């Protein structure tokens, strides 16, 4: 600590004066420098006490010059900085080498802290012994603050880059990656090491590389950023990724382009969803435009906001005419009211209405029938915004239904007429029969009267005439009468048969639960004499209960069984089997015999009235199975027949298992 002291020496005063003057001037110069520099200048003894310093240092430390003089560094530092400073000074002391950058913090008199950077060197006396330290102290508090701010700022940007979901990349002008954030390599499936330095051609197809090049080239040429450009990139695994990128030119300080920075967003999924949505939308649009039904959307006031082609066709208006149109224009008051009521209900309940019958008036004035379904249309928040619906033109169907109803009524009528006709005819035909029979009898008895008186007249005739008259009287006339009588009898039995058939079709059926086992047993018992005599075996399986008219069932079973007995083959022992199977709503009965069977060409006659198949050796009118069929039909059942000539015949009939309210009329 070179506090200059005056030293008396016996030398030439002039010289000394001159030398003094020179030193004074030099000292003056250094003092002036020290007092004017902004950095602090200090000198310490070896204990760290301040021995000399300039004003700048005083200002930095915040103490007065007097306070600061001889102040030890322990007094204005915390323990951490004391350690740091003493270590640095020790090093300077032991090595003798100056240290140009000791950084530490001091605590000023007012308690505030300052960051200082000292350059320190060892101070020696004339003999070269260390006597202290001297140095320059710079206040770097502001610089430190700026550095910290910068560091924070950089950290902020870095963490932004890391937390944003988008990729941030910087590439040089050659197209190689120079900087990337985490998202960048994750996006394409590379590791950070793989990705940095990678050229863009490695993650694009050649075709896309060309496109990318054009984009970057334009940015380079114009200096304009390219915003939200979409292009395709190729991930490491080869899948295509769709990127949406904003790229701008990166320049150095002097404004020369040095590369590009890009924010890239992976919109692959968004694109896929958009595509799915587009396809779905297209699908629905295609359906709506191609269905045969009309599709419409209405606002809450009931005015069309959207219509498909078909509804335009139904109504005869163009699409332009229909948009904004209210239903009152194509509906009369009654139908418009009906529609409004329905729409109101849909609005209030939120429930759709289906198959509402409507009459609509086309633009040309013709009337069509339509069947409308309406539901409420809501926005994303669930607020009703209108109605949508399907309108089907059912005019043709309505017409067909009407037609069908008319046909059914006509059929009903003509069916009734046929039944009445059969009934009336069979009655009215009896009237002439009574006469035929009556007058034949009258004729026969008149003939008797003539015959008994004939002998008296004989002598008056010659032989030839006598024999001719006798022939007529005794042979021709009785024979003619006989034929007439027989024919009338046959006709009478036909008429009776028709009458029975007509009655079966008219009589009231009283369905009741019937134990078919008991019914068949009774039927078989009535035939027992015949069965025993001819050695016929009848096997009856377990039969279920049915719901039917008892008399009808007796007639059905009686007819089928007696038929089976009648047409057995006399060359083998007769065997008849009755079985049944209930399957759900129906029960199927089978009556199988080993009789003579029916030839295939005769099968169509089996159920026809007055038709008898095969050898005509048994009496009957051929009406039995016709009655059976009529009765079964009236019960909603049916009958069929399987047969093989010489083997046997099986009759199969079905009947409702459970009682239905009323058997339908056959």
């Amino acid at each position: 600590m070179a506090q200059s002291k005056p030293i008396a020496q016996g030398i030439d005063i002039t010289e000394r004066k001159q030398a003094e003057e020179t030193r004074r001037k030099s000292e003056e110069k250094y003092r002036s420098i020290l007092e004017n520099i902004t950095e602090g200048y200090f000198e310490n003894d070896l204990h760290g006490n301040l021995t000399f310093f300039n004003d700048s240092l005083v200002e930095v430390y915040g103490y007065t010059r007097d306070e600061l003089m001889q102040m030890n560094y322990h007094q204005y530092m915390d323990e951490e900085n004391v350690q740091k400073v003493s270590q640095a000074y020790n090093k300077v002391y032991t090595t003798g080498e100056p240290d140009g950058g000791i950084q530490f913090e001091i605590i000023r008199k007012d308690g505030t802290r300052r960051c200082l950077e000292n350059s320190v060197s060892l101070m020696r006396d004339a003999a070269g012994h260390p006597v202290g330290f001297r140095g320059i102290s710079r206040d770097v508090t502001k610089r430190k603050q700026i550095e910290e701010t910068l560091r924070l700022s950089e950290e902020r940007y870095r963490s932004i880059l890391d937390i944003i979901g988008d990729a941030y990349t910087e590439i040089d002008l050659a197209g190689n990656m120079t900087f990337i954030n985490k998202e960048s390599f994750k996006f394409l499936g590379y590791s950070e090491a793989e990705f940095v330095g990678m050229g863009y051609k490695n993650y694009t197809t050649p075709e896309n590389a060309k496109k990318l090049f054009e984009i970057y080239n334009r940015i380079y040429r114009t200096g304009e950023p390219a915003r939200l450009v979409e292009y395709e990139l190729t991930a490491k695994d080869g899948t295509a990724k769709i990127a949406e990128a904003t790229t701008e030119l990166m320049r150095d300080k002097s404004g020369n382009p040095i590369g590009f920075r890009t924010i890239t967003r992976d919109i692959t999924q968004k694109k896929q969803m958009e595509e799915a949505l587009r396809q779905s939308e297209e699908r629905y649009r295609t359906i709506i435009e191609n269905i045969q039904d009309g599709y419409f959307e209405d606002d809450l006031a009931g005015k069309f906001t959207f219509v498909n082609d078909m509804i335009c066709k139904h109504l005869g208006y163009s699409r332009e005419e229909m948009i904004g149109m209210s239903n009152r224009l194509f509906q009369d008051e009654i139908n418009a009211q009906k529609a409004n009521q329905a729409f109101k209900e849909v609005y209030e309940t939120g429930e759709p209405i289906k198959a509402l019958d409507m009459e609509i008036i086309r633009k040309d004035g013709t009337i069509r029938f339509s069947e409308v379904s309406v539901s409420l249309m809501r926005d994303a928040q669930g607020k009703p915004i209108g109605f949508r619906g399907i309108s089907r033109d059912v005019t043709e169907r309505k017409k067909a239904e009407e037609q069908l109803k008319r046909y059914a009524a006509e059929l009903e009528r003509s069916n009734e007429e046929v039944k009445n006709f059969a009934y009336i005819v069979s009655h009215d035909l009896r009237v002439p029969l009574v006469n035929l029979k009556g007058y034949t009898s009258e004729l026969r008895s008149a003939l008797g009267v003539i015959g008994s008186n004939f002998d008296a007249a004989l002598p008056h005739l010659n032989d030839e005439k006598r024999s001719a008259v006798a022939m007529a009287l005794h042979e021709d006339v009785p024979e003619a009468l006989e034929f007439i009588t027989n024919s009338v009898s046959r006709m009478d039995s036909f008429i009776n048969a028709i009458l029975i058939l007509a009655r079966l079709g008219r009589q009231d059926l009283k369905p009741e639960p019937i134990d078919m086992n008991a019914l068949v047993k009774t039927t078989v018992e009535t035939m027992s004499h015949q069965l025993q005599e001819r050695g016929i075996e009848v096997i009856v399986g377990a039969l279920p209960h049915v719901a039917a008219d008892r008399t009808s069932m007796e007639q059905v079973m009686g007819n089928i069984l007696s038929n089976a007995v009648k047409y057995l083959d006399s060359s083998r022992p007769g065997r008849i089997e009755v079985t049944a199977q209930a399957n759900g709503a129906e029960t199927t009965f089978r009556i199988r015999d080993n009789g003579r069977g029916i030839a295939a060409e005769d099968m169509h006659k089996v159920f026809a009235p007055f038709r008898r198949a095969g050898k005509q050796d048994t009496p009957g009118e051929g009406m039995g199975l016709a009655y059976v069929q009529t009765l079964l039909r009236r019960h909603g059942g049916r009958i069929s027949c399987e047969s093989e000539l010489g083997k046997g015949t099986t009759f199969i009939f079905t009947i409702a298992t459970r009682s239905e309210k009323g058997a339908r009329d056959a």
Partner: protein
Amino acid sequence: MPDIQDVTILLVEDDPGHTRLIEKNLRRANIKNEIAFATNGQEALDYLFCEGGYANNKHASHVLVLLDLNMPVLDGYQVLERMKKDERTKRIPVVILTTTDDTREVARCYELGCNVYVTKPVDYEQFCEAIRKLGLFLLVVTLPDGAGG
């Protein structure tokens, strides 16, 4: 009480053959009463009420009607119905004589107020027998007073 011999039988029948057969067999059954003929329901009513073609006739003192059912103009049911509704004719005995033997029609006729229902058998022997028995029945029938309107 009228003598049965004084009763006029009104035979209402559209078929002339039947008319003759019935008449013959009634006579053979020893029925000697006067028989009047009507070929349809309207004629029968005209006879009974002395209207139309019978406007100038005197009312028969006592009448018994043999009535067929299926006839033109007015059928047997209509004749029966009108007779039973009219104070003048409601006590006149009516015998239905027809070819129909349908149970429902038999029931309907009794409901309308017929006294006897006879079916004409097609077989002539049975026919003759039925008419003979009807004749015997008629011989013992007692008619109410004023049964002739």
